[in-house]
């Protein structure tokens, strides 16, 4: 119990002290995970919509592979990226290993299937009537498809928040391809691992609290944005 109390205390002390290194680590965490999320979103949302709407040979298979990859272990994603970016790997010449770029690449690989798969599901649950209503009002095919995606917003935003949660809390991939280098590629999660390894349990817990707070704030912002676009969003009344 002592360790936990001390961790809570130390966590708040850490936040209050505005420790220079910790701020830098937090910012890098945000930078890596948000960039990865944006990239995963930019390619994942259209890809998911395509899988949901286009009937082609092998679609089922690709969907199933995507769903499977939604559970891709971060360490495995990290290992694959490591092997590609390593000096012995095919992309070694770019010298990207142990840089934030490598971490972003690994996290895009983790986030993409999640965004793509959940977007596909959200769009697939839309009814035929959405498309029909849209084309009968004069929409072109492209306009109707964009409307379908727009009407799936709630599901897509859920996909993005899920992906962000996974990325910001993930340690396996960023540890492997980032290398946890102090001042360069150290992020909140790898800091926690390191502090734990060094036996600084309460400091590790403190950083964990910062990580949780960060996730909480991001979720609040996303929910706020979501609310803004859904003024009429109502909850189910359970009486």
């Amino acid at each position, binding site marked *: 119990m002592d360790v936990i109390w001390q961790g809570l205390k130390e966590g708040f002390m850490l936040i209050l002290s505005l420790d220079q290194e910790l701020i830098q680590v937090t910012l890098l965490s945000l930078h890596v995970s948000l960039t990865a999320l944006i990239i995963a979103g930019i390619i994942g949302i259209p890809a998911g919509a395509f899988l949901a709407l286009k009937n082609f040979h092998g679609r089922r298979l690709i969907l199933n592979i995507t769903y499977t990859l939604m559970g891709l272990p971060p360490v495995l994603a990290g290992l694959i990226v490591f092997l590609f970016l390593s000096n012995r790997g095919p992309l070694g010449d770019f010298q990207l290993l142990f840089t934030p770029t490598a971490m972003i690449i690994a996290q895009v690989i983790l986030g993409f299937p999640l965004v793509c798969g959940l977007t596909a599901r959200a769009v697939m649950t839309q009814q035929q009537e959405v498309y029909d209503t849209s084309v009968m009002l004069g*929409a*072109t095919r492209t306009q109707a498809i964009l*409307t379908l995606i727009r009407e799936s917003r709630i599901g897509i935003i859920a996909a993005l928040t899920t992906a962000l949660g996974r990325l910001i809390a993930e340690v396996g991939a960023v540890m492997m391809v980032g290398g946890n280098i102090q001042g360069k590629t150290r992020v909140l999660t790898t800091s926690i691992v390191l502090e734990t390894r060094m036996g600084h349990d309460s400091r590790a817990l403190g950083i964990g609290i910062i990580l949780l707070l960060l996730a909480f704030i991001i979720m609040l912002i996303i929910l706020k944005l979501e609310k803004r676009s*859904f003024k009429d969003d109502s909850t189910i009344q359970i009486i």
Partner: protein
Amino acid sequence: MTALFRLFNVTKNYGDRQVLNVEHLEIEAGHIYGILGPNGSGKTTLLRVISLLTLNDTGKLEVLGEHIHWAPTQLLRLRRQMAMVTQSSYMFEGSVFYNVAYGLKTRKTPEPEVKVKVQESLELLGMLDFINYPARKLSGGEKQKVAIARALAVNPKVLFLDEPTSNIDPSSSIEIESYIKYINEEKATTIILITHKLFQARKLAKQMFLMWDGHILEQGPTRDLFHDPRDPRTRKFLKGEY
């Protein structure tokens, strides 16, 4: 008058079941046409085929004077002259304004014109007060009125109505019926109305089609059909519902 729709031997099957088999059908411009028939007789399928939402399996189909070959450009051109309201209309996530402006925006109508037309349409349906209201929070009757305003905003030649009042209360129903009549008379919009309600068909439609098992069983002026049905099944259907 030219025929808006012309069908020859048009069929549609879902698996083994034939849901539509129309040997010959012509619908001319200008009137309100009623399509009657029991559940599963193929009314909605017929409507979906002539509104170009459902591909027919066999036969020849002409819409607005054009032979239909289902090319996207043709579909777009023709659909932009029609509009549809179904029994529980889908409302897009967003305001009433967003919904009514939707069709105009797909046509890249300039913003000021969009505003004017949306207001006009809503005013006609007595829904102007709801312009900024979230469309999904409207009542069933209000939704249907917005759906009609949404359809009218694009100034269609043909308006398809698939049981537009079957899910709403009688007074809203009567209100909507009067709008339908008004639209047809004042805007010269051809209206094709599927309905379960015999009195509604009788009140609104000039011409009637009675469908049975995917076929057009009987057609003609509404008066004749109600007073002197030729087919015994028509007689039975009209009686059963009374």
